[in-house]
């Protein structure tokens, strides 16, 4: 494999991984605070993609590709982030909060229920056919030093980078971020230190869901929008979160990118058939659980949310 080819696969892996990372953050943040896996997270991603699609199509109308379509795309993304955040907060309030004192299995089952309601609700409301999310720009690939990059890939890298840096700043440098860290360390004690834990939990769901919406839209540009789109993507992002060390923000970012790169390289170098691509993620999951169950960043770095 030549250098150019290596960088080509690396580029493809990074973009796929960037999306996994965005989605994995939602799993990991919720786990960090509530110690439970929000299995409805993948379906919030689907809802975000649908919202983004509808708002974008409505804003765009029949305009030709140009500056306006790009603006419309980002507006649609913002609207989708906002509405998905509300959806995430609503789900938490209705399906998880009443179960906070219940056994740990109860909210997990509730999450699976919410997941079915969302994906079947979407199939019922919007049909089961997949819809195309048109590129808001001309997606003709450009070649930089023999590596072919699509504008879509550049968009993915830029957006996920901005999101991850903002999240880091938020968690490390704002009062709410500090409250989140304290809550993840010890909830009742944080409460007694005057921290509004309910607000922190709501905020966690809002941020996770907004990031999932972005991930959903970015994926939809390549793979269309359909009611069950969140299932497999959600599962893989969950694997990424576990690989990185669930509950750990840096771990989720790293795990997502690692998983993206492994998937691309697995197909390209080890000749794993494309149809079996999904086995890579779950193979990695099994390996990690056997060798280092706490995840790559599990105990090394203490910062959690």
């Amino acid at each position, binding site marked *: 494999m030549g250098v150019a080819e290596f960088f080509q696969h690396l580029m493809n892996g990074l973009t796929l991984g960037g999306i996994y990372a965005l989605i994995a953050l939602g799993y990991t943040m919720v786990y960090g605070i509530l110690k439970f896996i929000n299995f409805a997270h993948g379906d919030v991603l689907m809802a975000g993609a649908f919202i983004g699609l509808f708002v974008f199509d409505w804003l765009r109308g029949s305009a030709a590709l140009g500056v306006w379509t790009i603006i419309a795309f980002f507006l649609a993304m913002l609207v989708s982030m906002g509405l998905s955040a509300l959806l995430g907060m609503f789900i938490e309030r209705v399906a998880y909060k009443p179960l906070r004192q219940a056994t740990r299995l109860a909210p997990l089952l509730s999450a699976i229920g919410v997941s079915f309601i969302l994906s079947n609700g979407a199939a019922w409301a919007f049909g089961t056919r997949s819809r195309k999310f048109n590129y808001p720009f001309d997606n003709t690939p450009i070649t930089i030093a023999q590596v072919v990059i699509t504008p879509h890939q550049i968009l993915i890298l830029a957006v996920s980078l901005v999101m991850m840096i903002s999240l880091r700043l938020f968690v490390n440098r704002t009062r709410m971020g500090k409250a989140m860290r304290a809550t993840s360390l010890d909830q009742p*004690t944080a409460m007694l*230190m*005057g921290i509004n834990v309910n607000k922190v939990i709501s905020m966690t769901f809002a941020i996770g869901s907004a990031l999932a919406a972005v991930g959903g839209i970015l994926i939809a540009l390549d793979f269309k929008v359909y009611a069950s789109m969140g299932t497999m993507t959600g599962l893989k992002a969950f694997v990424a979160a576990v690989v990185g060390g669930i509950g750990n923000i840096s771990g989720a970012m790293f795990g997502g990118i690692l998983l993206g790169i492994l998937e691309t390289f697995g197909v390209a170098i080890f000749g794993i058939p494309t149809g079996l691509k999904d086995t890579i993620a779950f193979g990695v999951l099994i390996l990690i659980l056997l060798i280092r169950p706490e995840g790559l960043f599990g105990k090394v770095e203490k910062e959690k949310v």
Partner: protein
Amino acid sequence: MTLLETEKLTRAYGGVVAVNKVSFAVEEGLITGLIGPNGAGKTTLFNNITGLDVPTRGRVLFEGKDITAAPAHKICRMGIARTFQNIRLFKDLTVVENVMIGRHFKTGKSESRGRFFNAINSYIRLREEEEQIYGRACEWLDFFDMGGMKDELAKNLPYGKQRELEIARALATDPKLLFLDEPAAGMNPQETDHLMAIIRKIRDLDITVVLIEHDMKLVMSICDTITVLNYGQKLAEGTPLEIRRNQSVIEAYLGKEE
């Protein structure tokens, strides 16, 4: 003046009545002791006052305001702090960081400005704010003679110091009223003496203290007034001298002579 009182507070878990119609008052500026045999409902009463549990019946009044069933973080912000029977520090943070968390909600808020202004302002002035918090936290550590340990991890402190650190963290929220749940549990005599001196110093800062304790030497020598619970009910209240002579209290602790 009465700072806090409970009115016929009852907490039942199914058929078990852990606290039964207890009316308990805390006078401002005093050290109040809450004693009673194991299972008498002392910690349950604390939990129901500090918002970790919700009373089945009855009311809790703080400075005349009804705070029954208010969430714990609001009760904390009103000026009630507490510590736990089993130590609940942020174990993997340093000593000073533990105390800093107690000041979390105290900084960067200007009452006259809106939330948006406060959020932006606190982001810009982050370093300055952190320094203020750090400074105040260090003052509290000095109060406990723990200034030299501020960069140790909380879990590495000796047991007695961990208990005191928990009190320091509670004090960092600037409470008017401090609840201590068995502060001397597991301490050796020297540590207990140091703790007694600290509790007196806290009272001298005009902070009212309520403590649950089994160490009778500590209770009898520093409490101004004592309330005794038994089987969820109030058995007696009075000065240490009165409690020591109270026949029903002696029976509750030692059993009845046949």
